[in-house]
């Protein structure tokens, strides 16, 4: 109950932020140089054609009118019509979110698991060779440009070794996967499509690995530092001197207090990972959200940019909200 109230209050705080994002985006795309209408008409269109097209998208109205229309649409869940494709932005959005989310969630999840396992392992061997190597390896991963790493992994994993499928899709179409959510793994599970699951997984392997390698370092650092702090804390010392069993020590006295600080960082990493996917999606031909948003921006597809920025912002604040809730659940000291 208290949790619900907390969530409600936080959601309320989110409103002005989202409103700010909406206004900022709306203004920003319109002050950018360039004409969205010209990009859809081709070089031979006349001014009359352009005016007609402009009217079709309501771009002939005064700015405030356009903004009100946009807001009205948002309230009713209508994101407008893409200037490029003429299709409703909402449905395009729905197609694009799944793939990106699948990629980011898996990568951050993988990074989290690796970070926790290696971080605790590393903390327990603090300042020994194993600890040092793990940390430096993580830093090297973190220092690589993701697009470069992606290219290297493709060259090795697909071109040279042939272990992974060609970087040109998300699932083998021959598996006849019925798209439901857009996240192929999830769809494969929902439709109990075994071959599709395997195929989706093999397509995901390289991009997920790339993203995970790039983001694991800060998580690992945090887990290691927290675990080390716990290991050196009086509380852990007390538990040790009272002769508790190793398993009890690990689960009750090391892991949980060491992990309380992780959710906030995981949320931050999630946020940057979403940013990184623009590049990774490109390298792996991943038809995701980032590509869509960037293309929308290059063509000044106002509704697409507005919707994608709003969605990323929403995702961002929601992830932080979730992180706060998880933190509150993990850490009894947090008052909500």
């Amino acid at each position, binding site marked *: 109950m208290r949790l619900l109230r907390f969530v409600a209050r936080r959601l309320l705080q989110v409103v002005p932020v989202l409103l700010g994002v909406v206004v900022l985006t709306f203004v920003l795309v319109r002050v950018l140089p360039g004409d969205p209408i010209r990009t859809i008409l081709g070089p031979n269109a006349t001014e009359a054609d352009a005016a007609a097209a402009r009217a079709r998208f309501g771009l002939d109205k005064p700015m405030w009118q356009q903004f009100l229309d946009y807001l009205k649409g948002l309230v009713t869940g209508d994101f407008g019509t893409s200037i490029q494709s003429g299709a409703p932005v909402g449905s395009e959005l729905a197609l694009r979110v799944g793939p990106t989310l699948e990629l980011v969630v898996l990568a951050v999840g993988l990074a989290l698991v690796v970070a926790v396992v290696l971080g605790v392992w590393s903390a327990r061997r603090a300042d020994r060779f194993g600890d040092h190597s793990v940390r430096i390896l993580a830093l090297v991963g973190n220092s690589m440009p993701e697009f470069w790493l992606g290219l290297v992994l493709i060259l090795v994993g697909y071109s040279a070794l042939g272990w992974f499928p060609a970087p040109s899709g998300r699932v083998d179409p021959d598996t006849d996967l019925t798209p439901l959510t857009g996240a192929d793994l999830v769809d494969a599970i929902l439709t109990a499509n075994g071959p599709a699951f395997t195929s989706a997984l093999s397509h995901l392997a390289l991009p997920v690995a790339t993203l995970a390698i790039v983001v694991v370092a800060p998580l690992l650092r945090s887990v290691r530092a927290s675990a080390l702090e716990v290991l050196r*804390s*009086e*509380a*852990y*010392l*007390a*538990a*040790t*001197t*009272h*002769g*508790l*069993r190793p398993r*009890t020590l690990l689960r*009750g*006295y090391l892991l*949980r*207090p060491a992990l*309380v600080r992780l959710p906030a960082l995981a949320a931050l990493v999630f946020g940057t990972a979403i940013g990184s996917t623009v590049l990774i999606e490109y390298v792996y031909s991943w038809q995701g959200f980032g590509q869509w948003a960037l293309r929308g921006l290059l063509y000044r597809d106002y509704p697409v940019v507005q919707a994608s920025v709003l969605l990323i912002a929403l995702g961002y604040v929601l992830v932080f909200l979730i992180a706060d809730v998880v933190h509150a659940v*993990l*850490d*009894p*000291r947090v008052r909500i």
Partner: protein
Amino acid sequence: MSDLLSIEDLSVLIRRPGRDVAALSGVDLRVDAGEVVGLVGESGGGKSMVARAIVALLPGGAETGGAVRFEGADVLAMDEAALATHRGHGAALCFQNPRGALSPTRTVGRQLTDRLTTHQKLDREAARQLFEAVGIRNPARRLDAYPHELSGGMAQRVMISLATGCAPGLLVADEPTTGLDVTLTREILRQFRHAADTDGRGVLLISHDLASIASVCDRVAVLYAGTVVESGPAAKVLREPAHPYTRALLASVPDVSGRPARAIGGAMPLLSSPPAACPFAPRCAHATGECTASRPALAGDGWQYACFHPRSGPAAAAPPPAAEKRPATGRVVMEIDDAHVVYGSRFGSGGHHALRGVSLQVRAGETVGVVGESGCGKSTLARLMLGLAAPSSGTVRLAGTDPHAQRGRKLRRLRTKARLVFQDPVGSLSPRRTVADAIGEPLRALGVPAAERAERVAEVLARMHLDPTMLRRRPHELSGGQAQRVGIARALVGDPDLIVFDEPTSALDVTVQAQILDVIAELAGDASRGSVFISHDLATVRGFCDRVVVLYLGRIVEQGPVEEVFGNPRHPYTRALLSSAPSLDGGTAGGPQRAEPRVELAKDLDEADAATGCPLAARCPFVTDECRAQAQPLVAYGASEAACWRVPQIPALIREGAQTRA
């Protein structure tokens, strides 16, 4: 039958690249079952290292010599399996900072059952009983509490229950009462005595504060620079210590009977190898060539000391004749009239009522002591006087001016007239500013030119007996004592009308405390300004205050001349405070009330915040319905005032109580 614990010639040398530390050098110590042994000494003396050696948990790079025998087996030579049993079940540690020693994300009940199931295969019901046994009210509910939800005293009780929950043969408590109120300290120490008496456990009490553990120990060992300098029966060591260090240690503790603290100069050395001479020699007034040439062995039977020139006779000098204290007649520098302070919560409603109608005057040349338990509003009072907190009603006048009516430069100038000396000496100095900067800051506000500033800073520094090289240092390069001297210098430099000392010594080591108290006593006599001395420790206040104010839950419950309040306490709360103040004489409370039975308050309440009636009603042994209903104004009784209508009846009530108990 051998001793429960027998430490024989234990040496711990910690080897680290570039720096070795001889943490312990040839320590002998013995604890029997059913016995409480005190291990005392200043910080850095190696006390905690002894505790860690007992459970074989030494830091990396430690080289040990000698043996730690527990029931005959050498702990230092145990294998993992044997250690697993020994730790907890053989010897269990209670930690200094109980809240830090409890895992923050696990309920205390689970932490307790973890221990119970590990060592005894017991369940939650046993846990509840254990909680009850250490005096936790509502044990069933407390089992589900998280450590941060507990008060300090409660956490310490939980810690004790955790340690005893392992059913250890030996309980080792590392500074179990540091940071606790006098009343709580007594209560906690009793738990250890109880563990020894009822359960027949051996108890090793580690403390820097001799006086506080004096009451419960059978035997005492004094540690200095990793060596035992004296050990023996508590009565002997505490009353007629032979070793100069023990004597100095005892002398530096102020006593509630009025005996002032006597400081010894210098600080304990950090040894890099076992000492070849008497480690105390450099600070010892009686040291001779012999002392610096060779190390005295611990000699004697039962009562042992390591000294070539042992002293004899009581350590604590008789209280000096009380200096005549006349009521101050100087101008009023601080006047508080019926001040209330409410710390509002961010969302409006609620808020914490920290002060409720406090009136106070401080005159130039006068030192006013403010005492009370933690949470009574002492610090708020300090903040109020300094203008850091605004009264929600009532008035504050500093040097005749209301600081809250001032703005800008005027306010800033006014602020330099009242200065605060903080409880946390290092924390009150900006980490990135030099000492010179810190001391000179009030002068900067007064617009004193740089050259003159430097001059005055140097001057005040000299007065604090600090070296001028200090000026360039930053806070983390200072010891606690030095930092506090800097703090006092900063308070002094602008010639303020009022200096407020907010528990200035509570964060310091005993001998350093005594040094700082010396400095403060020296300043308090100055007729040009008034001083306020805030402390939870009555003994410290008694030394140099003219008047004393006793605060309880934001109200003044008693005030008057210091001799009157201490010599003839009226309010039950004042009486209880005095009763529980530790004393070296093995018992508690000193002075004229020795003979008088003590007043005890109901213990450890969950934040009682009575809106009506006497605030003490919930804890007072003499409570009546009228107390609960009627607010108690300060009423003059003799030379002092107390907020209790039953004052005239109390002496009789106390005698009655004593008789019925007898």
